[in-house]
């Protein structure tokens, strides 16, 4: 059985500014990566500091490795020594890169000799072998963060806390460092809490995801669950759902609901356990689930229950993907490759046929989605 490395229950922290952090329940398992995702100022970093016992909570419990680490009588230093944190800023000390990497070991009274293997692995993997004698001040932001990561990882912590470690790095270095870091995390299988506001990072590395907004966990679940079944419009937008359409449940039969869309003759079919007829809902469709066809070619019968005729209104270049917006009586967004653009001859004002499986259409809870704070 996989045991929980960290569990938070009923945690609350209020600030004089009026901001409050409230976590009813959150946990992560051993050797798994929990990604905390949310906009700036949502409370992600605060939660990391509370987990790392750098700040105290007003109430609630945190269990680390099955031990309660909140309340009186906790040896905070001992707990911190079993974790290590990398913050958004590298926060390196005014000594050599080598000394910086060994600093945590030094605080633990340990010698490099016991960590030689991981040291060599990290300096090689993080490409900082040639920087060891340098002072961090002479390094680029990306290099500094590599050193900060090595400093945290060499401690082989029971729980690694990464608080937006890639946020302050330029785009090019970020992608490279992200790949290196994720390789290390996969290879070492380290239990990690990774904070980011980049959903792509979450999609790549997460086992489970907690979406935080305004100091509340809006949704917490396995990665696929959060990405496929966002619990609210906010989360849907945050996890990259480009198509959000309001409609009314017309009927539900055999776990498939037909949603009537205002101002469109197209109905949308969605797989759902149940939904009351006449309920106002919002349906969410991920752009990568929308398949486009050249309208002149008959795609033939398919298992996709939704197929809409529409006209391309805009094509945006997103780098690897092109974002194609289609007017089907409602706005539908699809991500396609350049290759598909060329093969299908896609361009603005061109008519296309798009299809989406009913299982890829997710019905978001109730009408009052923006006020939805029941999590």
């Amino acid at each position: 059985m996989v045991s929980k490395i960290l569990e938070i229950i009923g945690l609350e922290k209020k600030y004089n500014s009026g901001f409050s952090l409230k976590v009813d329940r959150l946990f992560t398992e051993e050797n798994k990566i929990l990604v905390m995702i949310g906009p700036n100022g949502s409370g992600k970093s605060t939660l990391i500091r509370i987990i790392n016992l750098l700040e105290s909570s007003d109430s609630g419990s945190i269990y680390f490795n099955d031990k309660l680490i909140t309340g009186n009588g906790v040896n905070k230093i001992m707990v911190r020594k079993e974790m290590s944190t990398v913050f958004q800023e590298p926060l390196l000390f005014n000594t050599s890169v080598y000394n910086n990497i060994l600093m945590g070991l030094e605080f633990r009274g340990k010698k490099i000799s016991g960590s030689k293997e991981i040291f060599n692995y990290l300096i090689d993997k993080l490409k900082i072998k040639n920087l060891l004698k340098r002072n961090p001040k002479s390094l680029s932001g990306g290099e500094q963060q590599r050193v900060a990561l090595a400093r945290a990882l060499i401690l082989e912590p029971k729980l690694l806390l990464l608080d937006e470690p890639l946020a302050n790095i330029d785009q090019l270095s970020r992608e490279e460092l992200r790949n290196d870091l994720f390789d290390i995390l996969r290879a070492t299988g380290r239990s990690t809490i990774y904070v980011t506001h980049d959903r792509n990072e979450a999609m790549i590395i997460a086992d489970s995801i907690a979406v935080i907004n305004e100091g509340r966990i809006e949704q917490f679940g396995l990665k696929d669950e959060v990405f496929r079944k966002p619990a609210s419009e906010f989360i849907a937008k945050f996890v990259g759902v480009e198509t959000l359409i309001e409609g009314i449940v017309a009927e539900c039969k055999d776990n498939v609901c037909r949603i009537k869309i205002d101002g469109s003759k197209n109905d949308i079919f969605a797989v759902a356990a149940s939904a009351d007829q006449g309920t106002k809902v919002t349906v969410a469709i991920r752009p990568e689930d929308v398949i486009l066809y050249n309208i002149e070619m008959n795609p033939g019968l398919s298992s996709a229950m939704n197929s809409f005729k529409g006209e391309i209104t805009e094509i945006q270049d997103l780098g690897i993907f092109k974002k194609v917006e289609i007017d089907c009586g409602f706005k539908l967004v699809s991500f396609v490759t350049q290759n598909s653009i060329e093969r299908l001859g896609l361009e603005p004002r061109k008519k296309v046929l798009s299809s989406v499986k009913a299982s890829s259409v997710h019905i978001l809870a109730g009408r009052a989605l923006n006020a939805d704070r029941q999590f």
Partner: protein
Amino acid sequence: MELIWQGIKSAFILIFSGNKEILEIILLTLKVSGIAVIISMVLGIPIGLLIGLNNFKSKRFVITIINTGMGLPPVAAGLFVSLMLWRSGPLGIMGIMYTPTAMIIAQVLIASPIIAGVTLAAVQQVNPKLKLQALSLGANRVQVLWILLKEAKLPALAAIMAGFGGVISEVGAVMMVGGNIKGQTRVLTTATVQNVRMGNFDVAIALVIILLILAFIVNIFLTLIQQRENMTWYQRFWK
């Protein structure tokens, strides 16, 4: 002009002749000021660190007291120590008035607030997030203070320089509590005053030149530590 020129010439003769009395004065000056600065460092640096790195209710008030102490007139320090150590004073029983110990106490009273104040200002300039980073790496309280002091190394050394400069050039307090007794409590500054009063300008000039050279040597040493390249034990070991 002749007086000054003659004075400088005689001063150099005096310096290089290896005059025993001058040598004793130099040694006592270094001893009193050196010990006073070391004690002031031991007191001032931790006080500066603790105040600078912690938040508490009366922090501003305490900082104001230290800042006032930084400008403490030496004669006030001398008077206070005299009152304490005077035969009928609270600490008179110790019998250390007019001894180098009394001079050291007075100088500690002058230098400690300077070192504490400059250290305090220095650590307040250090990125406060470094403290969090050190804690998150598992540092205990002493390790946090030490690592942040190292971060504030440059201004902290300036604090020591300021403290040393303050005490080696001081005359009022050491005159009051030391008494400028020949062979016992006479230091460069008090000896200079004495010789000017007696019209021995050549000796006074010699003493001032020595005082300047001493201050210069000590500050060269501290500046070298302060400004040297950030070499680590690792670099020194492998280079």
